[in-house]
């Protein structure tokens, strides 16, 4: 498995501002993903972060709202832009290891509260 860290672990932000969340992996991985986990709801995939190209977004998520960077095989960022209270959630980074069998390993998450 991979060891994944996320920064910040939590934050409280004002409406209209933006927050960038970092995800660092201790080994090179091909596949990195960003999820949202809202209270009482299942995990929702926001996008797949592709190294060297634009992220692939799921239905309902757009690049202007959730820009993603993937500069190398061990690091990615997710920005939550122009935040509103509805963006309050836990944001999770996950990876699929190159030698794995499609299981994903998750970071500890970032708990975001928007006032």
């Amino acid at each position, binding site marked *: *498995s991979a060891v994944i860290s996320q920064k910040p672990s939590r934050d409280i932000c004002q409406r209209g501002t933006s927050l960038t969340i970092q995800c660092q992996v201790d080994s090179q991985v091909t596949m990195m993903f960003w999820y949202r986990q809202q209270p009482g709801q*299942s995990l929702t995939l926001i996008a797949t972060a592709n190294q060297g190209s634009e992220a692939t977004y*799921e239905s309902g998520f757009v690049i202007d709202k959730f820009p993603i960077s993937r500069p190398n095989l061990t690091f990615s960022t997710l920005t939550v832009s122009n935040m509103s209270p509805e963006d309050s959630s836990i944001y*999770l980074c996950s990876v699929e290891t190159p030698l794995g069998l499609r299981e*994903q390993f*998750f970071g500890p998450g970032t708990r975001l509260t928007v006032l």
Partner: protein
Amino acid sequence: EDQVTQSPEALRLQEGESSSLNCSYTVSGLRGLFWYRQDPGKGPEFLFTLYSAGEEKEKERLKATLTKKESFLHITAPKPEDSATYLCAVQARDAGNNRKLIWGLGTSLGVNP
């Protein structure tokens, strides 16, 4: 439409009282079914992957089984430290190179000492 349903939503057991959690799925061809454990304030922790009906996997007090329609997570003689939310997810075979997982809402398990 691909879907995952977990039951019960919540379960409270006495220490040592064995039980099972259910994950029912409908998917257009199953590539894999995944079980995770999630503690409050933490990311999901990978437990098992199952690929085909009849497959079983074990880890300590947990055993996961798979049929063509559902998976069970059996917990034998649970301890208070087994208290967590258990999540189930599936990946469809026709997803191609898409790694998207379809997630259930989870079962919140509490084990009383």
